[in-house]
Every structure is written in structure tokens, then in C-alpha cells.
């Protein structure tokens, strides 16, 4: 029980650290956004003093306030869910993000789920027929696929299935001309738009399959497997309860790192497919030098990853009875 609280505290700590980092970046780094903002719009205003007020509106940071006061105010507005105001979109960052987050989550959770299911299945079959042609072929596939960056695959898929064959839309996130809501055409359209981005992330399945194969081969040599065979358990029971379950457990860490990588990858993926999620807004913000939106998107993506990892960590305890604290004895 207590390690769950501890893990939760750790998540909060990370969010705090990241938000503080964004404050530090926005306010204190040489060439920081606040100074740039003031320098940029100050001369255009009749009263240069207004630039400071505008800075506070857009970035929650008053450049004239003492550092600790500015920090306190910044943290307060963050806790209140105020991420500032976007200059390019002329809207509250929080509103923009609230609208974009579900789309990114939708694509990324499917991408992670599908690539791991594919990877684990391939790995399990490889281990079962260790040394077969299938094994060699999939090892080759996995090595190749791991060598392809996901955005290269995304471009190729878009080129072939989007433009050449025209099977999938080349951009956007929802069908046009269909009323948004829980109706079948809209849902199908959503899936249609998300399909290519999701499949672009399949490159992650390569590494997962090799890991799964290695783990399974190792489990096949364990004593308890030999005992289970002697006890006369059915092959299916052994494959599912003994091999698969024990081989998948150690991959949980890999999955957690993949969550971070994939959410980060959303930045590129959404840009390629002009899929308006968090990453898309972030790149737009970078292009427009829209610092509030950029920092806001960065903060929101980080929080999403923190929450995803937290859920992964906490559920791990449910599936592995051995999970718990670790030894940190000093010497």
C-alpha cells in the first residue's frame, strides 16, 4: 500500500519539477521567451509598460516581479489550470489543449497497444519454433523494422496508401460533413483517419518481438517449466500461464519507456498527418514563435506521460505478485 502512495508522490514530484523547469526556461534562460516577448512587442506599444502586463497575461510571468513572487504566481496559475494564452491561435492554451488531448491519447494508446500485441505474438511464435525459418525471417523483419524511424514509415504509408492508392485520408483527424458525436459514420471516419498514424508506430513491434523471444527462450529453460511438463499440464496451459505470463512481465519496463518515446513521437507524427493533437499544436507554436502555446503543450504532454507511467506502475503490482519495494541499502 505505502509504495503506491510513494509512487504517486513521485509522479507529483516529477510534474512539479517539470513545471518548475518550464518556469526556469521561460524566465531565466538567456534569450528566454519573456525577454524576447517584451523586446518584440514593447516598441510597438504606446506604453512600453503594457508589454509587461501582456507578458503576464500570456505567460503567467510578470518580468518585473521579484523571482520568488513570479515563481509563486506562476505555480498558482498552473495549479488553477491556467497555462497562459496562445498568441498565434488567440485562445487560452488550456482550452486548446483540452480539445487536442483526447485525439492524441486516442491515436497513441492504439499505437502502443497494437505494436506490443504484434510484437509479443511474433516473439512468442519465434520462441516456440526456435531455429525455424519463421524464426530467422522474423528476426530479419525485426532488425529491419527497428532500423526504420517511425516518421519514415509514416511518410511511406502516407505516400502509398494516402496519395497513390487513396485508401486513407492524407490529413485531418475527423471526417468532414459528418456530425461529430457517437454516430457510426463519425466513429468509422475517426478510425479511418487514425489508421495510418497508428500503423506508423508499428516499428516498435520489432524490438518488442525480439525481447519477447529472448524472455520466452529463457523461461523455457526454467525448472518450473520442467516440473509443469512432468506434472502433465496441457501444452496450452504451459504456453499461456507459464511461458507467456512470465515472459511478458519483464517487458513492462520496456513498455513504460515506449510510452514516453511514443508520446514524444506524436510531435512528428501529428505534423506529418496534420492531425490536430498536442504535438501538432506544439510544432505550430514553434514555427510561430508562440512561446505560451509551446510551453503549454510541452507541459501537457509531460503530464500525460507521467500519468501513463503512473498507471502502468500501479497496475504492475496487480499482475506480478512479487512487485513491491526494492532494496536500497547503502555502502
Amino acid at each position: 500500500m505505502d509504495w503506491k502512495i510513494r509512487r504517486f508522490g513521485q509522479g507529483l514530484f516529477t510534474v512539479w519539477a517539470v513545471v518548475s523547469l518550464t518556469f526556469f526556461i521561460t524566465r531565466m534562460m538567456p534569450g528566454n521567451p519573456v525577454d524576447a516577448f517584451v523586446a518584440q512587442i514593447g516598441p510597438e506599444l504606446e506604453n512600453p509598460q503594457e508589454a509587461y502586463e501582456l507578458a503576464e497575461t500570456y505567460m503567467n510571468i510578470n518580468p518585473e516581479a521579484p523571482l520568488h513572487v513570479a515563481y509563486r504566481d506562476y505555480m498558482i496559475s498552473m495549479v488553477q489550470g491556467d497555462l497562459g494564452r496562445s498568441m498565434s491561435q488567440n485562445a487560452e492554451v488550456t482550452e486548446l489543449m483540452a480539445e487536442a488531448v483526447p485525439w492524441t491519447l486516442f491515436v497513441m494508446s492504439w499505437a502502443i497497444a497494437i505494436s506490443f500485441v504484434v510484437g509479443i505474438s511474433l516473439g512468442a511464435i519465434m520462441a516456440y519454433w526456435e531455429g525455424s525459418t519463421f524464426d530467422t525471417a522474423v528476426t530479419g523483419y525485426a532488425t529491419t523494422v527497428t532500423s526504420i524511424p517511425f516518421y519514415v514509415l509514416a511518410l511511406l504509408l502516407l505516400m502509398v496508401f494516402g496519395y497513390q492508392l487513396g485508401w486513407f485520408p492524407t490529413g485531418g483527424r475527423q471526417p468532414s460533413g459528418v456530425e461529430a458525436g457517437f454516430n457510426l459514420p463519425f466513429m468509422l471516419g475517426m478510425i479511418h483517419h487514425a489508421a495510418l498514424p497508428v500503423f506508423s508506430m508499428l516499428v516498435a513491434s520489432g524490438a518488442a518481438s525480439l525481447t519477447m523471444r529472448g524472455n520466452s527462450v529463457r523461461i523455457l529453460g526454467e525448472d518450473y517449466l520442467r516440473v509443469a511438463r512432468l506434472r502433465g499440464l496441457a501444452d496450452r496451459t504451459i504456453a499461456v500461464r507459464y511461458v507467456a505470463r512470465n515472459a511478458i512481465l519483464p517487458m513492462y519496463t520496456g513498455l513504460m519507456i515506449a510510452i514516453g518515446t511514443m508520446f514524444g513521437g506524436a510531435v512528428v507524427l501529428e505534423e506529418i498527418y496534420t492531425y490536430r493533437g498536442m504535438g501538432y499544436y506544439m510544432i505550430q507554436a514553434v514555427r510561430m514563435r508562440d512561446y505560451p502555446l509551446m510551453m503549454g503543450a510541452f507541459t501537457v504532454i509531460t503530464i500525460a506521460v507521467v500519468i501513463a507511467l503512473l498507471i502502468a506502475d500501479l497496475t504492475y503490482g496487480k499482475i506480478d505478485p512479487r512487485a513491491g519495494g526494492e532494496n536500497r541499502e547503502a555502502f
Partner: protein
Amino acid sequence: MKPSEDPSDDATDPRAGASIDEFVPDRPDDATDGAADSATAVRSDGGTVDADSPFETTASVAETRTDRVDRFFEEYIRTPWSILRTDWRALAAFAILGTYILIATVGVYLIEPTESAHGPQLLGVFETWEFPLGTTSSGKDVLALAVHSTPSILVMMASGAVFTVVIGSFFGVVAGYKGGMVDTVLSTITDVFINIPGLPLVIVLAMLLEEWINNPVALGVLLAVAAWAGLARSIRSQVLTIRSESFIEAARAMDLPTRWILLREIIPHLLPYIVVNMMNAARRVIFAAVALYFLGVLPFSDANWGVMLNNAYNAGALYRTSAIHWLLVPMIAITGIAIGLILLAQSLDQVFNPRIRARHQDLGDDDQIEPDSETDTKDMMNV
């Protein structure tokens, strides 16, 4: 083998005739004032009085310089090579990576840099020998662009990979070995970085540090910022296992310095893992760098695969068949080097496996009964 026999019973023994007393080494009582004194005290009657004793022996025949050079050569060159020579993956990896290095060093002199209107617009692949890989919409030679991108990419890759591994190993090894408060602090920092998605962080930093990241080394280091934490965490957990091994305790009992224990006792066990991860880090650095150039968030001056991708994409290469080569050439360049890195990682693992090492050396009879352990490379290829 008669370890329990009294030495004085055995007439053929080289130590024959020596009484038990002569075997007694000088006691530390002679030198309780400190380590330095003890060392000299041992020396004082070390090699002279009991030259016969195995415990006080000093050399009669000097190991020549040639012997030592030979031993070094055997250990670090001949053995690894004889292992790698037999592995097709290593040979393929060397061929691939060698080609890239050749292109980056020799190729840039053979193929002249290109500029706008160097040739006709959007020439296809293998249409003329002057532009074998075709041209861009502004008439630049695609081959020349790809070749002249290579040096900066390789430098970026190397600096990023080295930096990732150095920082990751340092955090992991120190946190794991020292434990306690040091571990708590380092692990907390690591955990925070694991939670921050890499690419967005790099984009934010790249935006703000525009002025400093104008060279490939700096960019490599910047990209490593997002990659070291995962490595640090997994190395830490491995160090936690290794440090509880008996040989580490024995080393501590012998008062070997912490630096020695970390570098000579622990790191060799991690080396396969670290090297494999260096290859993976190199791969990820390239992927990330190209992605950033593709997105156009990095300032660029030189030719660059990512910039090529970006330009081709913006020129509509996705739907203009005549421009496809412009897009495909950088894609193949990236994928090719990544394959080379993965194959090298898989085969290098074997060099560090002591069982395989021993088999490639002349030690007379080769009496190992255990079968070779399954190579671990594949498990290490985390996503």
C-alpha cells in the same frame, strides 16, 4: 594434486629442504605504522632471504617487453578479431558502417558540393551519369546532398552516443554502487528525466538555445539529454545485482579504491550492455536529429538528410512521382546506417562474453563442460 601434503615430505618439490619457519612471511606486526611502511618492510626481506618460498618469490627470468606487447595484442586485438571474423553480422556491420565512414571522409572529396541550378530540375534516378541519384526541384544533385550530409550526421551520432553512455553509465553505476542518499538523489533526477518525453524536451531546448547548437557536436549532446535516463535506470538495477556478488565484497575487503572497483570490477560486467546501448543510442540520436531537421525546428546551414526530407516533403514529393527519389534517398541513408548499428551491437556482445573469448585462445586443453550461454543482445534491444 596433493594440497594437504606437508611440503617437507616431498623431495621433488622445489621448496624441498625449507623448514616451515622459512615459509612464514613477515608479519604485519613489523609494520603496524601504516600501509606504506608495511610495503617497505616486506621489501626489506622480500626477494632475498626466502627466494625459494612461493610466498616471497621474486622473478628470476624477466618477462620481456615483447612478451607483454604480445599479451596486450592477444587480449585486445587478436581475440576480438577472431571472434568477430566468424560472425556474418559483424562483417556486414563493418561493411555498412565502413561505407558510411568512407563516404564521409573520402566521398566528400570525390563528389563536389552542389548548388541550385546545378543541373536540370527533378531529374530521375540513373537518368544521367552526372546525376546518378537525380536532382531536386531546384536542380541540386541529390547524391551530392546525401554525401555531404554524412560527415555532420556521423559526428552528431558519435557525440550523442558517447554523451548518452557516459552520463547514463555514470548516474547508473554511482547510484547503484553508492546507494543511500547518493542513490536517492541521482535516482530521483533519473526518474524525472524518464518521465519527460524526449523529443518535445529537445525541441523546447533547441528553440531556446538556438545560438549554441550551431555545430553537430553540440546538437549530439543536446539530443543525448533526452536519452540517458533510461540507460541510467537499467544500469543502476544491474549494478545493484553485481555489487552484492562476493567478488565485490572481496575487493572491498582488500581495500581496493572505489574507482578501481567501479572501473575494473563492475564496468567489465556492464560493458556488453553499455556497448550495445551505445549503438542503440547512436541510432536514436540520428533518428531524433533527422526528425528535428525534418520538422524545421533546427537551424541548418549544411546539407542534411533531415533537411532533404523536409524540402522533398514540402515540394510535394509524397504525391509527385517525379520527386520520389528525393524523398527515398535520405530515407534509405538513415535506415542503412541504423541496420549497420544494430548488427554491430548484436555481434559485439560476443566479444565480451568470457566463455567465447576463452575458446578463441590457445590455452592447451579446452575443458569447459557448460554450453555457451544464450547471447543477451536481443533482450537488450529495448524500444
